[in-house]
């Protein structure tokens, strides 16, 4: 079972032959807290004889560390320190690797880090928009888990309880987001995701290529597509409303959060790319387990969504 440490606990643990993997941006903060550990900025620099690796970074870096540990050094104790919440990489059994062909997803209990460390100060200087998108990423995990056809009643109940707590958290930096995000990721791993992640997985690379200066990434895509996808789901099935009633979730409050996360202009820009990518979106592994069947003609709903939102 994964352990949870704070920074003081990390500093006090005897790690043996250990190193830190972090981005250059984190180097100073990490050196101040862990002065005795050798720093590396790329997995290629890591030796295979490490007893412990402290990986400090966002989802991409943490996933790289997870993949390295499984593929190169399974005996290494992996300690994950997220610098941003949302992806849940520090807690999930999933590691995502971006390749020229798209995202490759590896999954299994061996990808869960042995320890996750909550060091909220690392997230304090994150730009407001990045923090907001990270909140959207977290909401997308727990909401898609809540309605997933693969979720048990116990998982749905836990999702509802988590969302009730999340409704008290602001859509910007707050220390509690690190634990909320890890919990959301755990629930998503116990059930599944859906069309929000189908859109995110298929659109990230082309949007980053087409609009490199506009801050597109997985978290922003999840945040922007959460409202349209949940409205699509609701238009085809009463399940979201039924589950909310069954588990005491304040659904109007949840819709209000999704409205705040929605960015109409960003959505319109993304839909220009999505239209050409629709077959890939419809075939995405996550789309195929969406709780509402995503059929070929579903694109029409999304194409008109922005205009309907304006008129609402």
């Amino acid at each position: 079972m994964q352990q949870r440490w704070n920074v003081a606990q990390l500093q006090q643990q005897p790690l043996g032959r250990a190193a830190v993997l972090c981005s250059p941006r984190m180097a100073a903060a990490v050196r101040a807290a862990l002065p005795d550990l050798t720093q590396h900025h790329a997995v290629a620099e890591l030796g295979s004889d490490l007893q412990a690796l402290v990986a400090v970074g966002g989802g991409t870096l943490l996933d790289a560390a997870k993949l390295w540990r499984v593929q190169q050094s399974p005996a290494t104790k992996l300690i994950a320190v997220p610098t941003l919440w949302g992806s849940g990489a520090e807690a999930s059994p999933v590691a995502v690797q971006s390749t020229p062909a798209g995202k490759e997803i590896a999954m299994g209990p061996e990808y869960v880090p042995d320890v996750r460390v909550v060091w909220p100060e690392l997230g304090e200087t994150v730009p407001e928009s990045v923090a907001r998108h990270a909140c959207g990423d977290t909401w997308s995990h727990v909401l898609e888990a809540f309605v997933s056809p693969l979720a048990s009643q116990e998982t749905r109940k836990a999702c509802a309880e988590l969302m009730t707590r999340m409704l008290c958290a602001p859509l910007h930096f707050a220390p509690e987001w690190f634990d909320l995000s890890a919990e959301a990721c755990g629930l998503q791993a116990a059930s599944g995701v859906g069309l929000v992640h189908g859109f995110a997985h298929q659109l990230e690379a082309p949007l980053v290529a087409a609009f490199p200066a506009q801050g597109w990434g997985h978290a922003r895509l999840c945040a922007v597509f959460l409202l349209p996808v949940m409205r699509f789901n609701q238009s085809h099935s009463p399940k979201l409303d039924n589950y909310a009633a069954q588990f005491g979730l304040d659904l109007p409050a949840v819709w209000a959060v999704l409205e705040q996360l929605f960015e109409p202009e960003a959505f319109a820009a993304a839909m220009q790319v999505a239209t050409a990518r629709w077959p890939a979106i419809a075939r995405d592994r996550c789309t195929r387990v969406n709780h509402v069947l995503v059929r070929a003609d579903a694109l029409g709903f999304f194409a008109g969504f922005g205009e309907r939102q304006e008129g609402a």
Partner: protein
Amino acid sequence: MDATHLTDNHIKLKDLLLDVLLLTESEFSFALKRAECETWDSLAVVAIAAGVEEVFGYHFHPEEATSLASVADIIRILQSKGISFEA
């Protein structure tokens, strides 16, 4: 199956499975078996269950969904629940 014998429910089921299994018209038949269809994987099992519930109002139990081995199985189960595929 002769097109003249297709009921509305046959057509709905066919349209559903074309979408779920990512098949073209020419790749589909009512004699299709899961073992013959590469796209009838574990993800498709979930999507078939979701789609059948939407289209026909019947919720497959997980054991039922995973045991489906053919289109004929789907029709048989739905017929047993009172959903007609008779002309």
